[in-house]
C-alpha cells in the first residue's frame, strides 16, 4: 500500500474517532508544548543576555579595563574573589599612558560609578546611581539626548557642576516639571541639570534608567571612589574586531609595565568584552537546554506509552478489520505500515498541536511576565521529528502484533 494511501487511511480513522484520538495525542501534545515553551524561554533569555543585558553594559567592539570584571554571574570561587579584592585600583594617572598607547581608529572614555542620594526642592531625596565620566562616553555607549544637551569639552575639562539625568530621574526628582536648568543636590553640592538621556530600557523588569551623569572632574568623583584620583574603568571601542585585539594587547602591555608585573604572572586587571562577559551564559545555557529538554521528554515518554496502549487496544478492537484486509490480499507489511503510519500520524498531529500551543504559551509568558521568549526554529523541527519518532516507536509493537494475526482467527473475531 502506498505511503500516502496509508496516511489518508490514518487521517480517516482519526477523524472518525475524534475524542479518542485527542486523548491519545494529548500526552505528546503536552510534551511538545512544554519543550517548545521551555526552549523558547531559554532562547529568549539568551537573546536578552546577549543583546540587552550585556549589550547595554558593554558596547559592541569594545572592552573595559577594570580592576575586576564588572559582570560576575554564575558560581564564583571565594579565592578568586579574594584575589580580586587585593588587586590595585585604577588611577586617573593610568589613563594618559593607556590612551597614548591606543592604535588608530579607537575611541576611549573613562567612568566611575557609585550610589548617591540626589535631592531636589520638588521631591524627597532619591537614591540613584551617579556616573562620573570623561572622554567619548556618550559616543561609545550610543546614548543620545531627548532633552537639553550633552557636556561641552570645557565642562568636562573644568569639572563643572553640570548633570545629565536618566529618564527615570526626571520624574523622581522633578515630577511634572521640565528639569533643564533646575538644581539637583548631590552630597550637599548643587548641580545644574543640562540634559536628559534617552532610555536604556530594562532587563527582567529592572529599569536601567535610574542614573545621573556628571563630568568625572566635578566634585562628584569624591563620592564614587575612596580616593579622588581613583577611577573605575577605561572603556575602549575599536572600529572593528582586529583593531580591538590590537588595542587590548597594547593596553595590556602598558598596564603590566605600570604594575611592574613579571613575565609569567597573571594580569592584575581585567579587560572585559561582551564575549567574555557572556561566557558564563553559554555555560548556563547548556545546562538549561538539557534540563529544558529532559523534563518535557518525560512527558513524551508518557505520551508514547499512552499511544502504544491505545494502539494495542485499536489492534484488538479491529482484529476483524485486519482479518478482512488480509483476506483481500493485504500483506504483513501492509498491515504493519497501516498501524505504524496511524500511530505516527496521531503523534505528529499531537506534536503540531503542541508546537502551536507551545508558541502561544511562550508568547503569553513573554507578554505577561518579565521572562522573555523567542521561539527557536530548531525546536519546531525537533518537535515534529520527536512527535513522528514517538509515534513510530510506540506503533511498532502494536503494528507487528496486528501484522502477525492469523487471518482465519482474525475473521472469526466478533
Amino acid at each position, binding site marked *: *500500500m502506498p505511503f500516502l494511501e496509508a496516511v489518508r487511511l490514518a487521517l480517516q480513522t482519526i477523524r472518525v474517532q475524534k475524542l479518542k484520538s485527542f486523548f491519545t495525542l494529548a500526552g505528546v501534545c503536552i510534551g511538545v508544548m512544554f519543550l517548545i515553551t521551555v526552549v523558547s524561554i531559554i532562547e529568549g533569555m539568551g537573546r536578552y543576555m546577549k543583546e540587552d543585558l550585556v549589550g547595554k553594559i558593554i558596547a559592541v567592539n569594545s572592552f573595559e579595563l577594570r580592576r575586576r570584571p564588572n559582570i560576575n554571574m554564575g558560581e564564583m570561587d571565594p579565592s578568586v574573589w579574594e584575589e580580586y579584592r587585593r588587586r590595585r585600583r585604577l588611577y586617573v594617572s593610568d589613563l594618559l599612558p593607556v590612551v597614548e598607547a591606543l592604535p588608530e581608529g579607537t575611541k576611549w572614555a573613562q567612568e566611575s560609578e557609585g550610589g548617591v542620594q540626589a535631592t531636589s526642592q520638588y521631591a524627597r531625596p532619591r537614591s540613584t546611581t551617579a556616573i562620573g565620566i570623561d572622554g567619548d562616553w556618550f559616543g561609545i555607549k550610543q546614548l543620545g539626548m531627548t532633552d537639553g544637551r550633552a557636556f561641552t569639552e570645557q565642562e568636562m575639562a573644568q569639572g563643572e557642576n553640570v548633570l545629565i539625568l536618566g529618564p527615570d530621574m526626571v520624574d523622581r526628582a522633578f515630577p511634572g516639571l521640565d528639569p533643564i536648568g533646575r538644581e539637583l543636590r548631590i552630597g550637599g553640592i548643587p548641580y545644574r541639570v543640562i540634559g536628559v538621556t534617552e532610555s536604556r530600557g530594562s532587563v527582567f523588569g529592572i529599569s536601567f534608567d535610574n542614573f545621573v551623569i556628571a563630568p568625572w572632574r566635578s566634585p562628584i568623583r569624591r563620592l564614587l571612589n575612596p580616593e579622588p584620583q581613583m577611577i573605575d574603568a577605561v572603556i575602549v571601542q575599536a572600529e572593528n574586531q582586529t583593531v580591538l585585539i590590537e588595542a587590548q594587547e597594547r593596553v595590556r602591555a602598558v598596564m603590566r609595565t605600570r604594575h611592574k608585573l613579571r613575565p609569567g604572572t597573571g594580569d592584575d586587571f581585567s579587560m572585559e568584552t561582551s564575549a567574555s562577559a557572556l561566557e558564563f551564559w553559554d555555560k548556563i545555557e547548556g545546562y538549561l537546554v538539557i534540563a529544558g529538554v529532559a523534563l518535557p521528554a518525560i512527558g513524551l515518554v508518557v505520551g508514547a506509552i499512552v499511544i502504544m496502549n491505545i494502539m494495542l487496544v485499536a489492534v484488538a478492537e479491529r482484529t476483524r478489520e485486519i482479518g478482512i484486509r488480509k483476506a483481500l490480499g493485504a500483506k504483513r507489511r*501492509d498491515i504493519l505500515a497501516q498501524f505504524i503510519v496511524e500511530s505516527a500520524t496521531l503523534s505528529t498531529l499531537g506534536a503540531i498541536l503542541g508546537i502551536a500551543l507551545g508558541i502561544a504559551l511562550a508568547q503569553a509568558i513573554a507578554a505577561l511576565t518579565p521572562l522573555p521568549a523567542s521561539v527557536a526554529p530548531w525546536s519546531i523541527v525537533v518537535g515534529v521529528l520527536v512527535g513522528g519518532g514517538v509515534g513510530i516507536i510506540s506503533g511498532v509493537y502494536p503494528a507487528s502484533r496486528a501484522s502477525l494475526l492469523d487471518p482465519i482467527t482474525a475473521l472469526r473475531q466478533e
Partner: protein
Amino acid sequence: MSQHLEEEVPLSTTAERKIIVDQAGAAPSKEWVIVTRGVKREYDMGGEIVRALRGVDIAVRRNEYVAIMGPSGSGKSTLMNIIGCLDTPNEGEYWLNGQLVSTMKDDELARVRNKEIGFVFQTFNLLPRATALANVELPLVYAGISSNERRERAMEALEAVQLGERVHHRPNELSGGQRQRVAIARALVNRPSILLADEPTGNLDSKTSEEIMRVFEGLAETGQTVIMVTHEPDIAAHARRVVVLRDGTIESDERREVFTEKLGLTL
C-alpha cells in the same frame, strides 16, 4: 432453463477429474482452476490432534459452479480456508490456476488471495466505517492500482450488482441483501479466478437468499468459476455440481440432478 445452461457450460466428468488428480506432482493444465491431491489438515487443539481433512482430492474446471456441502465438523470450513489460501495443508498438493499454492509463504498467499480469489462471507465482512465504494476499492488498493482506476472499477462492479445508486452508503445504511451484493462486488472487482462464497445466504431471509442466488447464477452464466460452501442442501442445489464432505473426506461429488434426486429435492 437449467437444462439449457448445462448444455452450454462444460461440466467436468468424474473420469476427467480422476485423470487430473492422479497425476501427482504435475502442474495441471490451465483449464483446471483448482486441483487438490491428497490434502490433509490437522490441528493441535490443546494436545488433542483434530484431523479436519484426511486426504481430499478435488478438481474444478474453469467456469464450473460447485457447491461444497457437509454438516458442521465435516471439514468444509477447513477446505474452504485452504482453497481460499487463508491456510495451507499439512500434506498434499493444492494447485490454484496453475500455481502450487500449498507450499507458499504468507506474503505469496496474500498476493494469490488478492489476484485469484474473491471472498464472499456469511457475515459480509464489510469494513463498517467505510462506504460501499471504499469497501469495493479495498482489493484494488492492495493490488497497487491508482486511485482513479480503482474508483472507476469499483463503480463498475457496484453497478453490475445494481448498487450504482448507493455507493456512498455505509454498510449500516444498507439492507442485508445489499450488503451481500457489496461484498460480491468487492469479491469480483479484481477479476479473480474463483469466487469463493462461505455460507453466502446464512444471514439472509429466504427471499433475499433467492435474490443472491440469482446473482450467483448470473455470474456462473457469464463464465465466472464459483465455489460455494454451505450446509443447506437447497442452497447447494443451485450449483451445477455438489461435493459432499463427511469426516474430512469426500463422500460424494455429483451433478446437481443426481444430488437433488437423492435428497428428493425439487427445483
